[in-house]
C-alpha cells in the first residue's frame, strides 16, 4: 500500500497537464499551475512572510493558457514559461518581470525545458501546429522544425543512448517522431492521439493515448501496453518501490493513480484521489533533500509520495501487509491451478470420448478442418477483404472477431453472417496506410451447433493493402511525381513492392525496368511505380498526385533498402498551385487582421464614451438621453459581436493556412531521407522568414536552393 507523504488541498482548480514545480528564486520550490480564467497560481509553501494565507499568488495571463512549464533557462534560478494559443511568455517570478515574450504563430500546445542536441545551453522547446521551436534564454529562436501534425506531447529521452537527449514528439497523426537535432531519426505509429510522453529509464519511454492506453517502449519496440476504459490524464516515472528501476506512474480521469513496473507493466501500487488527476510531477517539494512524486488533482488536491523505504516501515505494518499479500497470492495460485485443471480435464474427457463408440459428430467439426485466410482486394466495395474459408463442408464459420490497431473505429470488428457458410469475407478499410497484425478469432462449428471451436489466426495486413494492382493504361499517368536514384538492383525493388502491396502475381518487371500500376481504393487515386536503370544506378519514379502518399512510399522504401540519405526531385504542379493559394491566403488574412484590429480599437473607444455619457445621464436623472445612449450602446455591442465573429473566423482561417504551410514543408521533407530531409526543413524556414516565396517553391522541388 502506498501512503502519501503529504497531502494538501489548495482549493484551486488545476488545468490538466498544466502544472510545474520550480525553484523560481533559486532556493525553495513552488508549484505553478494554470487555473480557470486565464490565470496561473503559485503555491509557495516555503514562503515564510505573510503566513499560511499568503501562500498562493496569482499571475494574470488573460488568455487561455495551453502550457505551463519551468526550467533552468537562467543559471541561478528556474524560469516559469506560460504558453497560450498565440504566444510564449518566459517569466522571472522573483523579479516579477518577463524574461522574454514571443509571438508564436503556431501556438503552444506543449512545451518543455532542458538540454537538447548539441546546444550548449538549456532550451525551451515549444510544440505547436505542426511545428517545433526552440528558444534560448534571451528569447531568440535557435531551433525550428516541422512535424506531421499538431504536437500533442513532448518529452526528452536518450533513446539511442549516445549521451544526448533526443526529443520525442507525439502528434495528432498518431505518430511519435524521435528528433535528434532537426532530423527525425525514427517514427513510431500508435493507435490514437497522444496525451503524454515520459522518459522512464535509459532508452525506455512511456506513452499515454486519448483512448485510455498506456504503454512503454524500449527504443522502438513496445514492451507492454494496457488499455482502460477510463481516460489517462498524466504519466511520469519514478522509482517508488525502491528496487532501483523507475516505474511508470499514471494518473486517470477517475482519480486513480497507478504505479506499474517498467519491464512487465504489472501494477505495483494504486491510490485514489478524490478528483481526476491533472498532473504528476517529480520534485523535492518538501525541500528536505528527498525527491517526491507530486500528484495534482483537477480540484486542487495535491499528494506527495516518497519511495518505499523498507527499513523505515514498522514491523507490525509490514506483517499486516504481508498477510493480505499472501492471501492474494493464494487466490492467484488457486486460479492458476483451476485453469490447469480445466485443460487437463479437456484431455481426459477427450480421451474418454475417443474410447467410447464413434463420438457424435453433431456439433463436432471434422478433425482435419483447417481455416485458410488471405487478403483480397474488393474493388467494387473499395475495401480489402479478409477472406476466411474452412476446408470442410460440415464446418461453417459462425462468426469472426478481428482485433487490430488503427484500422477500425474502435479496437475490434465482429462479423456475424445471417447464414453461416464455409467462406466469409471480412471487409477491411484501413483508415491509413499502416502495416498491422490482425488477431483473428474464427468461430467454427457444425451448422446447428451452439458450441464452437475457436481458430486463432494472425495475419499481417501489408502496409499498402488498400491499393489494387491494375493494368497499364487503366488510367492516365498522374502529372505529379517524385524522382530519385538509388544504387540498387531492380529485383530488390520488386521484392519491396511484393512485401508492401497486396499483389497476387509478382510485379510485371523485366530485368531491366519495373513498372507497376495501382489504384488506391480509398480515394480512387492512381499510383505508378517505375524503376529504370540509368548508368549503373536505378532511377525510381513514384507518380501520384498525393504528396503524402509519395512521402510515405519514399520513407518506406528507404527504410526497406536501408538508405541513410536520399535526395529527390519533386514535381507536384497541382499541389504547388494549391500551396500558392494558401500562401496568398496567409497574406490576405494577415492584412485583414491588421485592419480589423484597428477598427476594433476605434469601436472600443466609442463604446467607452457612450457608457460615460449614459451613466452621466442616469446620475443626472435624464432618463430620455440615457435610454438613447443605452440603445446606441446595445447597437454598437451587436456590431462588435458581429465584428468579433468575423475576426475569429479570420483568425481561424489564418491558423489553418499556417498549418498548411507547415504541413507542406513537412511533406516536402518527407520526400527526402536523412541529411537532405533536414536541409529542406532548414531552407524552407529560412525562405519563409525572408519571405522569399520563389525560393520556397524551388526548395520544395529540388530539395535545395539559394535563400
Amino acid at each position: 500500500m502506498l501512503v502519501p507523504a503529504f497531502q494538501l488541498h489548495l482549493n484551486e482548480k488545476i488545468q490538466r497537464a498544466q502544472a510545474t514545480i520550480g525553484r523560481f528564486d533559486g532556493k525553495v520550490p513552488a508549484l505553478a499551475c494554470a487555473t480557470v480564467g486565464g490565470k496561473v497560481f503559485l503555491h509557495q509553501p516555503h514562503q515564510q512572510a505573510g503566513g499560511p494565507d499568503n501562500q498562493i499568488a496569482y499571475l494574470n495571463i488573460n488568455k487561455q493558457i495551453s502550457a505551463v512549464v519551468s526550467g533552468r533557462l537562467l543559471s541561478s534560478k528556474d524560469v516559469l514559461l506560460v504558453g497560450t494559443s498565440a504566444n510564449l511568455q518566459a517569466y522571472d517570478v522573483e523579479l516579477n518581470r518577463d524574461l522574454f515574450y514571443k509571438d508564436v504563430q503556431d501556438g503552444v500546445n506543449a512545451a518543455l525545458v532542458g538540454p537538447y542536441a548539441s546546444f550548449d545551453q538549456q532550451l525551451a522547446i515549444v510544440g505547436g501546429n505542426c511545428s517545433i521551436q526552440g528558444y534560448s534564454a534571451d528569447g531568440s529562436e535557435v531551433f525550428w522544425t516541422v512535424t506531421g501534425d499538431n504536437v500533442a506531447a513532448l518529452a526528452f529521452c536518450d533513446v539511442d543512448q549516445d549521451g544526448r537527449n533526443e526529443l520525442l514528439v507525439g502528434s495528432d497523426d498518431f505518430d511519435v517522431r524521435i528528433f535528434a537535432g532537426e532530423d527525425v531519426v525514427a517514427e513510431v505509429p500508435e493507435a490514437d492521439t497522444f496525451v503524454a510522453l515520459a522518459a522512464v529509464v535509459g532508452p525506455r519511454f512511456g506513452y499515454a493515448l486519448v483512448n485510455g492506453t498506456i504503454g512503454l517502449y524500449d527504443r522502438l519496440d513496445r514492451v507492454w501496453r494496457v488499455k482502460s476504459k477510463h481516460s489517462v490524464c498524466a504519466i511520469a516515472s519514478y522509482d517508488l518501490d525502491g528496487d532501483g528501476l523507475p516505474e511508470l506512474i499514471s494518473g486517470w480521469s477517475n482519480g486513480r493513480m497507478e504505479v506499474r513496473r517498467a519491464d512487465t507493466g504489472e501494477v505495483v501500487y494504486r491510490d485514489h484521489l478524490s478528483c481526476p488527476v491533472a498532473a504528476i510531477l517529480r520534485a523535492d517539494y518538501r525541500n528536505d533533500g528527498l525527491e517526491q512524486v507530486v500528484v495534482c488533482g483537477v480540484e486542487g488536491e495535491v499528494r506527495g509520495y516518497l519511495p518505499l523505504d523498507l527499513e523505515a516501515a514498522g514491523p507490525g505494518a509490514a506483517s499486516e501487509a504481508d498477510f493480505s499479500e499472501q492471501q492474494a497470492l493464494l487466490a492467484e495460485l488457486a486460479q492458476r491451478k483451476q485453469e490447469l485443471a480445466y485443460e487437463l480435464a479437456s484431455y481426459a474427457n477427450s480421451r474418454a470420448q475417443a474410447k467410447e463408440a464413434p463420438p457424435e459428430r453433431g456439433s463436432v467439426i471434422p478433425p482435419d478442418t483447417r481455416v485458410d485466410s488471405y487478403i483480397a482486394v474488393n474493388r467494387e466495395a473499395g475495401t480489402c477483404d479478409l477472406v476466411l474459408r474452412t476446408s470442410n463442408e460440415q464446418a461453417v464459420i459462425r462468426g469472426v472477431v478481428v482485433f487490430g490497431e488503427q484500422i477500425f473505429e474502435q479496437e475490434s470488428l465482429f462479423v456475424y453472417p445471417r447464414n453461416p457458410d464455409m467462406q466469409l469475407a471480412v471487409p477491411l478499410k484501413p483508415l491509413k496506410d499502416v502495416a498491422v497484425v490482425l488477431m483473428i478469432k474464427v468461430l467454427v462449428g457444425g451448422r446447428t451447433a451452439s458450441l464452437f471451436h475457436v481458430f486463432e489466426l494472425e495475419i499481417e495486413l501489408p502496409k499498402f493493402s488498400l491499393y489494387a494492382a491494375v493494368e497499364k493504361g487503366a488510367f492516365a499517368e498522374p502529372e505529379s511525381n517524385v524522382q530519385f536514384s538509388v544504387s540498387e538492383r531492380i529485383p530488390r525493388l520488386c521484392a519491396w513492392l511484393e512485401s508492401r502491396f497486396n499483389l497476387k502475381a509478382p510485379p510485371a518487371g523485366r530485368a531491366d525496368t519495373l513498372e507497376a500500376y495501382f489504384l488506391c481504393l480509398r480515394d480512387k487515386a492512381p499510383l505508378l511505380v517505375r524503376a529504370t536503370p540509368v548508368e549503373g544506378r536505378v532511377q525510381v519514379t513514384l507518380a501520384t498526385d498525393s504528396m503524402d502518399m509519395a512521402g510515405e512510399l519514399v520513407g518506406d522504401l528507404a527504410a526497406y533498402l536501408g538508405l541513410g540519405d536520399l535526395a529527390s526531385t519533386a514535381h507536384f504542379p497541382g499541389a504547388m498551385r494549391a500551396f500558392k493559394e494558401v500562401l496568398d491566403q496567409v497574406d490576405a488574412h494577415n492584412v485583414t487582421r491588421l485592419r480589423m484590429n484597428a477598427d476594433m480599437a476605434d469601436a472600443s473607444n466609442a463604446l467607452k464614451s457612450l457608457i460615460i455619457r449614459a451613466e452621466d445621464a442616469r446620475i443626472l436623472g435624464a432618463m430620455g438621453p440615457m435610454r438613447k445612449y443605452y440603445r446606441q450602446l446595445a447597437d454598437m455591442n451587436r456590431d462588435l459581436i458581429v465584428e468579433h465573429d468575423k475576426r475569429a473566423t479570420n483568425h481561424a482561417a489564418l491558423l489553418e493556412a499556417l498549418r498548411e504551410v507547415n504541413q507542406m514543408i513537412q511533406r516536402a521533407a518527407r520526400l527526402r531521407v536523412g541529411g537532405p530531409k533536414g536541409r529542406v526543413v532548414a531552407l524552407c524556414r529560412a525562405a519563409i522568414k525572408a519571405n522569399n516565396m520563389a525560393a520556397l517553391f524551388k526548395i520544395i522541388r529540388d530539395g535545395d536552393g539559394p535563400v
Partner: protein
Amino acid sequence: MELELFRQDLIQTSTCAAGTMAVMPLTEEKKTQKVAAGDLSGVIQCFSVKKGDFQVAFKTLPSKENKVTSLVLGKGKTQRDKIFLAAGSQIKGVNKKGKEFFRFNTQLTETIRRVDIFEKNIWSAGEYVHNHFIEGRDKALYLCPDRINDATVVPLAGPTELWPVLACQDRYVRVLRGSAVCYEAPTPAAPVSLQYVPESHDPQHRFPQAKEVLYGTDVGTLVQLLLEPEAARQGFTLPNPKKQGAVATVYSGIDFTKTGMNNIVVGREDGGVEVLDLEEAGQLTSVYSVKLTESINALDGGFVTGLLAQEFVLHSFSGKIISYAPPGGGLLAPPPEAPSRGPLGLRKAAPPPAAPLPGAEEEERRASYARQIERLRQEISALRQEIEAERTRFQARGGDTAQLAMSAPFTVQDKCKLEADEACYVLTIESAVPIFTVAIQSNAVLQMLDVPTNVAILSRSPPDESNGNLTLATYRCQDSTNRLAVKFKVREGRPSSLSAFVIPAISPKACLVVRHTIKPLCLHSRITAMDADRPTNELLITGSFSAGDVHGWITGVLHDLPPSLPPGQDGATYYFTNSLLGTQLMIKYRAGEARFLSDLVSTLGILHEHCMREATNAKQRVTVSFNPSAQSLQHSVALVWPQLEKQRTLKKTYMMLEGLQELRMQDGDVSYLSPEYRSVLDRADKIRQEYKEQPQHLDHLVALIKDLYLDFCKLTGVATPKTRIPALDQLLLDPGSSLEDLMEFLTGQRGVWALDPGRGVEPEAEEEAPSGGGSQGSRWPLGQATVREAEREV
C-alpha cells in the same frame, strides 16, 4: 466491530451447481469435520484437513450423466453423516466412506434442483414441481405457478413433522402442507435462496415458537421470515444500497462476534461475501466482507481445518472450496525455524491455547501460508507435467483439436435481467475459465452502457443491416476475468434476440454461445397490485379461444410470466409496471375473453399487434374493441413530461455551458451572473457527463411520445395524421414549450378532428407561434450576458 478472518484455499472441484457442498457433523473423536462436495462433472468427493494435511476420504469418477445438482446431509437422527445427492432425476445416498447405499429414480422429467431427506421422507424440488415421497412412493405433489428458485423443509408442526417451504419466482414464499399451499408470504422481490435457521435470530424472544427462514432476493436483499403453522411474520431486512448482486446462498451457524447469536454469512452472485451481525435493535451490520471474482454457490461451516475455532466454508462457481477462519483457528503450522520436537523426538508440551504467546500465532500463520503456497505451487507443477504428458500422448494419437475443444468442460452461467430502477437490462456472464472476449450480437438497437465495475473494454462494430445485425460489439477482458456484466438499454415494441459468444482466454479454445430473447414489452416488470385511480384505456379481445391460448400470446410479449397457465385455473390476472415510465398494465383473461387495461396506449398497441398476429397464425377469429381514454393520453404524457423536460433542459444547459465558461475565463469573477448560470458553471462537469452518457435519451423520449400519439390515433380509429408529426416534433424539442401546449396539441387535434377533419392543419400554425416566442424568451438572458461582457471589455 470488524472481524479478522483468514482465507485458506482447500480444494478445487469442477464447476458446480448451487448448493452442492456440505460440512459433515462433528464425530465423537477429536477430529476435524469432513467436507463433502459434488460438481457438474459428476464427481462426489469428501475430504478432511488434519494438521494441515489434506486427506481424501473418497472421490468418485466423473460421469457426464451424473451432474450433481443438489447435495445435502440427511436430517434423520441416524442419517446426519449420510450424504444425499440429486443427479438429474435420480436421488442417491452415499455414506461417509463413499459407498452408495441408496438409489432412487424419481421418474421425474425435471432436473431436481434441491433434495431433502428426513428418515423415510424424500422431498424434491424441480423447476416447477415439488414432490414428497415416502419409501419411494409418491405422497404429495405440488405444481407451482412459477419457477421454484429454492426449497427447504422446516419442522413447523413438531420436530418430526417437516413442512416444505418454497421460494418462488413470482415473489412468494410458499409453505406447503401435503399437496396444498398452507399459506404464502409475499416478498418484495423474487426470492432466490432460502435457508432454514434452527437457532433463530430473535433477540427479544418474542416469538419462541416461530421457525426462522432467511431468504435472499435477486435484488440483493436479505429478509428474515418467522414461520408459524398458520402464518408468517416478516422480521429484519438487509437493504442493498450498494446494489450488490443477488443473494445466492445464506449460512448462519457460527458466532464469530461472540454476541450469543450466530452471525449470518451471505454469499452473493457477484462474488461478494459478507458476515453480518444482528444487533439488539434488529439492525444488521456488516462485520466482515470480501469480494471474490465468481459467484458463491454454497456456504457452510464447522471445524474444518482446526479444532480451535469454527470457520465458514464456501464453494464457488468454478469449484473452489475456500474456508475463512477467525484468529486462533484455521491452518496454522509450526514455524520452520523452531523445530517442534524435543531432543529425544518427544513432542514438546504444546503451549496452552488459552494464552498463546503474542506473535506466536502470527508466526505460525505465516508458516502455514508459506506451506499452503508451497503446496499449491507443487500441485501446479504436477499438473503442468501431467498436461505435458497428455499433450504428447494426444499428438502421438494424431489428436483432433476440434474434438478436444468440444470436450473442454467449458461451462458458462449467465443471466439476463431487467434492472427496474434504471430501465435497462444487465446480462451477466460467468465462466469457469478466464474470458478473453465476449462478442455481442443482436437484431435490435442496443444502447450499451458503462458498468463501473467492469474492466473489459467495449468496442462497437458498425451495425451490419444486410445481415440483420443492428448491434455488434465486443468486450475484451484484461487480466484474468471470469465475470462480465453487459448493461444496455433497449426500446419496447419489437421482439428481438441477443447472442453472446464467450471466448475463453486459455486453451483448448471452445466458444460457447448464450442466447436471450427480448420480448416486445421488455421494460415491464411484475407487480402485485395496481393503482386504481389512474385513467386507463381498455383493450378487449373476444373470440373462441381458450385461456391457455391467451396465456401463450402474452408470454410471447412479457417476461416474468409462468410458462403455462397454472393448472386447474381458467384464467388469471397479472399486473405489470413499465420501469421507464411508471405506467401500469393489467391483464385479465379467461376462455373467450382477454381484457388489457393500461394508462399507456402504446403498451396496448404493442399487445394488440402481437395478439392479432398470434391469433391470425393460429387461424382464430377474434374481435377487438378498444375503449380509449383521452385522459389517459394526457396522463401518460404527463408521466413522461418531467423526464422530457429534464432532458431538454440538460441539452439546453449543455449548449449554454461553453459560452458561460468562456465568460468565466474572460472575467475570472462571474459573481454578476444570475445564480442559475453560476450553478450551471459549478455543475459543469456533471452536466457534461450526464449529457455524454445519454445523448440519445431525448430522442428516445420524443420518439416515445410520438409513438404514444400514433398508437392512440391508430387505436381510436383515426387515420394517422402524418402531416402533424413534424409539428409535434418541433413542439417536443423546443425547450420553451410547456405541458399545456402539448396537451392542447394532442387533444385539440382530436376536437378539430371530430368537427372537421379538413381543418386539421390550421391549429398547428397557431401552435407554432407561441412556442417560437417561448424559445426567444429563453434565449434572452444569455444575450444579456453577452452585452455585459462587451461592456467589460472596454
